């Protein structure tokens, strides 16, 4: 994963979704994500991150997607960081039409 934008703060209170050009393939260890536009592959090693990423579009904001996937308040910063990395590599993007 690109780490360039990973240091940027990820806004948990905005609506997010998986980019349309990204395919997700479940694997025993988590999932593989492939972006057809950037031609980049990313590995998700944590099934809960996968659950969050897949449900982003169904929630008004990323925070509620994390909560309903079962992410605890204590674990939230780590998930925020993981989402920031995914946003930095364009795998997920902010949703329009709020």
């Amino acid at each position, binding site marked *: 994963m690109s780490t360039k934008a990973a240091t940027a703060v990820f806004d948990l209170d905005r609506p997010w979704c998986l980019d349309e*050009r990204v*395919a997700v*393939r479940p694997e025993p260890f988590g999932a593989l994500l492939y972006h057809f536009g950037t031609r980049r592959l990313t590995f998700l090693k*944590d099934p809960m991150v996968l659950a969050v990423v897949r449900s982003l579009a169904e929630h008004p904001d990323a925070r509620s997607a994390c909560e309903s996937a079962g992410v605890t308040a204590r674990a939230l910063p780590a998930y925020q960081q993981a989402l920031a990395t995914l946003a930095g590599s364009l795998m997920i993007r902010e949703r329009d039409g709020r």
Partner: protein
Amino acid sequence: MSSPLPLVEQFQHGLAAPICLTWELTYACNLSCVHCLSSSGRRDPRELTTAQCKALIDEFERMQVFYVNVGGGEPTVRPDFWELVDYAVAHRVGVKFSTNGIRITPEVARRLAGSDYVDVQISLDGATERVNDAVRGAGSYRTALRAMRTLAAAGFDGFKLSVVVTRQNAGQLDDFAALADEHGAQLRLTRLRPAGRGADVWDELHPTSAQQRAVYDWLVSRGENVLTGDSFFHLAGYGQALPGLNLCGAGRVVCLVDPVGDVYACPFAIHESFLAGNVRGDGGFTRVWRESELFADLRRPQSGGACASCSAFDACRGGCMAAKFFTGLPLDGPDPECVLGHGEAALAAVGGAGGQTLPRPTPDHSRLPRQSSPVPVTIGRRRPPSRSCDEDPLAGFVPRAG
């Protein structure tokens, strides 16, 4: 947030579908590169039909194979090539195809430039006409450069310039990078394997150990800006690993489907010892990938063999299986190009490459009869027949055991 095992170890147990699948569409080729991995030249009459190719793409879609690396032979000489590309894209299977550039017209380039799902690799093995054409054949440098100009003019940003590093071009890396920059392309360097016809010329073409060190340093300095297809992981023994997974992915994350539908563990291992099955069999490609005995075997933990006690083993993991196999080295020993020099010692111990009966790459679709012993490469000239009778279709024919 952490998985129970490092990712590399997870990968060694295999994946639901390959990450990097190479599909060679035809053995037909307008060129006769001396180091061709697939010994291509003539089309095989048993090659998959258009309908069979489409059925295979359907299977890739079901398995969620994100993209296929299409090669050959020269894939674009198949009359249904663009039809198959369109079909794959319509089924969300991306296509990265390797070509010598022969069919890249302005019209084709405009179509390709418009798709996120298609990527192109132009093969070039010399930054100068002389070095390239000695290996790839007369006129091939001009064809590749014309294709690069055509792609650039059509606005295809970031296509790949794909180079196999050899003793003859290892000093041209900066020139290749400049050539890529000039055309808005990205440079991709890969390792010369002693596979296919490459087995015949490996002794003359593979980089010296000093060159190999220089290539490694150059790649480290370029970081992720130069692609390598993970092919130099045996150089991780120098210290810092290069970007990539750094493991032999054969049968674990990588495999090859050849033009007749045979599935091999990797593109550099076209030999019956690494044949896992055929896509036309019951259960198709999916069953071969998930259930073949060969792949199950490759996914079991491998012993380091003679390398297990080496301090670099965790970095290089013994190197490339195919490179060992075709140079006659044991699969659980050092790579022939081991950075600590253990490969040279091992080659000497087995009598040196060519000094014994080496496994012959199979099958062979070369247009000229294959030589049975290493052939010196003469820079600036096409490889001449060693004797006039070598033009006879049976000249040099050696029946192969097994």
